[in-house]
């Protein structure tokens, strides 16, 4: 096997040096009755060439969004990832390093993490950010736990327009803890009413912006209400590109921002791996979950970086840790950092502007179609259509035409009365011809 260097002869020699007669002697601690003698019932080893063919065959059974007009969003967005980002993450020294436990020979990873933390803090308008969580939903759940720790309260209010999967994950994460989630119902029109619920027992309110249906709102008033009640405002952002055009959650008064960073640098990859963002105020940093990278100096006085404040973490604090997270989204956060570095202030703003422009133009064209109505008053690059037919059926028919037309709301909210609602995202990757194809297909179908 190409990945293992020993020859049969070498193995014999090495066993000799160890002082055992056969390889079986190395496995004597395994209870005899459980030992496997034959091989597992699986195929034998395969050549690289054959493995590659297998995966090409599997890939051939999918419709690639690269070759189809793609309007899918609902928390994951197709964006152009600059080739430099993918090149950098394939550098051996980034790709095949572990967590930077030995800072003297891990400054590459560490400095990049420090830059990531800074970028996340800047775009969210927060003071500090950690070195990543698994994804947006887990970051949301961890934010709620953190808010409960900070406030020493036990109840979180989840907006009805929070991405349903984020709600699911938060509920799942909280279910066996002492904390509890109050889940509001989705609101299609008008503002949600939080006021009634924000009492002295509330640790935080979790609200998504743009929300699940694509709407954007100024959360300043909500933040004030939260703070007045001693609660924190947790803002979820799952399309981070929106932050290039919008006021930051920090500006609106957020205390914690839980984000999905996939849009910047990370390929769609059927849902993972992505990169969870978690940012907050400096004063809450010791309640933060996850790794943190900090600046320091070395013995010669040179600036350098280390993992720090690890007394919050499981490997030091064990059952008293702020979270059990260990491995996080390392390489995805690097891809994020590289892409964001390429964009810069100017590029990030422009990317957002393009996304908004394309989406507004597409929304106008779609809204003009018969049987199609844009229900959003506001949006960034994604909006919700009310169709004259079942959205799932329409999506299937579009797929038959090689178009990925959107995400039926009912796929994520199966028990709400939303069968005709379709989420449509329009990013910089949608060409004019893609939109034309969608429109003419919809004309045929509806």
């Amino acid at each position, binding site marked *: 096997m190409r990945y293992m260097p020993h020859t049969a002869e070498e193995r014999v020699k090495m066993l000799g040096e160890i002082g055992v007669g056969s390889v079986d002697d190395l496995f004597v601690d395994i209870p005899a009755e459980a030992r496997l003698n034959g091989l597992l019932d699986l195929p034998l080893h395969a050549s690289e060439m054959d493995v590659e063919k297998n995966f090409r065959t599997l890939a051939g059974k999918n419709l690639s969004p690269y070759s189809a007009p793609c309007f899918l969003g609902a928390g994951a967005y197709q964006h152009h990832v600059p080739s430099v980002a993918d090149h950098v993450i394939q550098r051996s020294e980034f790709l095949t390093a572990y967590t930077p436990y030995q800072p003297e020979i891990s400054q590459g990873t560490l400095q990049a*993490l420090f830059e990531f933390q800074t970028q996340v803090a800047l775009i969210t308008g927060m003071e500090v950010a950690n070195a990543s969580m698994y994804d947006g939903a887990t970051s949301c759940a961890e934010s709620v736990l953190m808010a409960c720790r900070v406030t020493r309260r036990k109840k979180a209010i989840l907006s009805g327009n929070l991405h349903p999967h984020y709600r699911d994950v938060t509920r799942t994460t909280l279910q066996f803890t002492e904390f509890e989630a109050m889940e509001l119902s989705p609101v299609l029109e008008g503002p949600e009413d939080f006021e009634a619920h924000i009492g002295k027992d509330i640790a935080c309110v979790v609200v998504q912006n743009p929300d699940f249906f694509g709407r954007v709102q100024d959360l300043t008033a909500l933040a004030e209400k939260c703070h007045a009640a001693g609660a924190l405002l947790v803002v979820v952002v799952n399309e981070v590109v929106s932050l290039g055009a919008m006021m930051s959650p920090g500006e609106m008064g957020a205390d914690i921002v839980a984000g999905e960073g996939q849009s910047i640098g990370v390929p769609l990859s059927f849902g993972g791996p992505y990169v969870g963002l978690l940012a907050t105020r400096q004063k809450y940093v010791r309640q933060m979950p996850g790794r943190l990278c900090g600046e320091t100096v070395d013995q010669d006085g040179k600036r350098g970086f280390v993992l720090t404040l690890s007394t919050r973490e499981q490997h030091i604090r064990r059952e008293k840790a702020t979270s059990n997270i260990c491995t996080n989204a*390392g390489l995805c956060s690097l891809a994020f950092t590289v892409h964001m570095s390429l964009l810069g202030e100017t590029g990030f703003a422009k990317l957002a502007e393009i996304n908004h422009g394309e989406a507004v133009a597409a929304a106008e064209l779609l809204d003009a179609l018969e049987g199609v109505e844009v229900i959003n008053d506001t949006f960034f690059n994604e909006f919700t259509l009310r169709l004259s037919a079942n959205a799932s059926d329409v999506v299937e028919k579009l797929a038959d035409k090689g178009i990925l037309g959107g995400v039926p709301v009912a796929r994520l909210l199966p028990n709400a009365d939303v069968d005709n609602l379709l989420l449509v995202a329009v990013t910089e990757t949608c060409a004019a011809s893609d939109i034309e194809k969608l429109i003419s297909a919809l004309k045929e179908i509806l």
Partner: protein
Amino acid sequence: MLNNQGRPTRPNTTEQDNSATDTFTGNKALDLETPLIFEQGVPGRLGVDMAEPKQVKSRLGNTARNKPIGLPDLSEPQVLRHFVRLSRQNYSIDSGFYPLGSCTMKHNPRINEKVARLAGLGDLHPMQPVSTVQGALELIDDLAHWLKTITGMPAVAMSPAAGAHGELCGVMAIRAAHEAKGEARKRILVPESAHGTNPATAALCGYKVESVPAREDGRMDMEAFAEKLGPDVAGVMLTNPNTCGLFETDVKKIADMVHEVGAYFYCDGANLNAILGRVRPGDLGVDAMHINLHKTFSTPHGGGGPGSGPVVLSEALAAFAPIPFVTHGENGFDFVEHVEGEASKSFGRMKTYHGQMGMFIRALAYMQSHGADGLRQIAEDAVLNANYIRVGLNDMLHSPFDGICMHEALFDDSSLKDTGVTTLDLAKAMIDEGYHPMTMYFPLVVHGAMLIEPTESESRETLDQFIGAMRHLLNKAHNGEDAYFAQAPLFAPRRRLDETGAARNPILRWIPEEDSQTLSAAS
């Protein structure tokens, strides 16, 4: 692995005259410095070209941004060079031997990177209609089959994002199973030697963690265990092979005892590499075990992640598995995405989407490459290599536990006693020799622990050179050259860093000169 037990975290600053070897730029030939990206921008520079935005009437309502963010503007070549320079300051498996115990730093094949990027795989959207992702679902189903076959378990939950997340999945399933039976158990037993994620996970599931001590031979103390076990115990979390690199010889008995009191057996599968194809956890009575695809199945660690931690489950726990999962429907593969129907007992959802697909692809490519024969060989060579290192060093370094080890060799620092050299010092001197140090100060049950996991990827020459270098350093230590160790590393991009200072006055982000005072005041 990192721990601060007995580990000095603030270097002694040495006075040195570097002027003869200093350069104007601070670079030293190929050791190239790069400032923070924030220190390199000039407003108006462009790293990404884009078409001009459409001029439209804004639909942002009153949320439009009206302040700058503060990101630096750079050109593409600047950004590329910055990150290439940074990368060159890292050690990696590709550059050398990385025997970081408990982390299974094995070869990361490049074909896996290639297939993960194929059009039709790497670019799939998670919410595509299932009719358009049949190949993706088949792939997940294939991988599940391999994992179940390898572990001898009937079910697997694919969505956990890493080992700790897998633990959470397993312990949640355990708690859900108890609750389904109307039982409210309170305690989880965890051996002292366990990884920190184990107790942290149990706590997250509302359990009280009770620590079980180790026996003289490095295995769990069965008497203490029996004592702590009882009807209010929900489960045990046992790592096997354990974090001392030893197989828990009483594992079957443990399983039986656990089941007897109606509890479940969670196995931390971080060390699965050692037993691939030699024994199936399912045959040992395990109820749930996470598999670190980023260890055993070589998906790259990427400087800390992403990982993937599927959890195999016994019949008893299978029904409680999290959504979503793949099923075989009438029109091919299908997805169960909600807690209803088939999934009505599911304890819920753990991730935004379906799991770490990018890691699934790599892991499956890795498994296919090895096949049943190669997988078994992995375990054999991993254990062979660890024992080869063990016997190569155990006349100079003390093994706290006798006999054959599994995939990693554990030493303590007793042989360094009176040398003035610590485990940490030794590790830093190893850096100068061109190695990534072993795991230090973990597991906690051993003083000044050094946990060396060579993996099956390493050649005998590499092991021999490593053993030689270690012996050389140990000789130095015994020859009173502690000053040599105190100053190490000498050749790395940075000398020892002030970790105490970093924690005492945390600087967690870059701040523009003008603002730095404001923010540090706020903190």
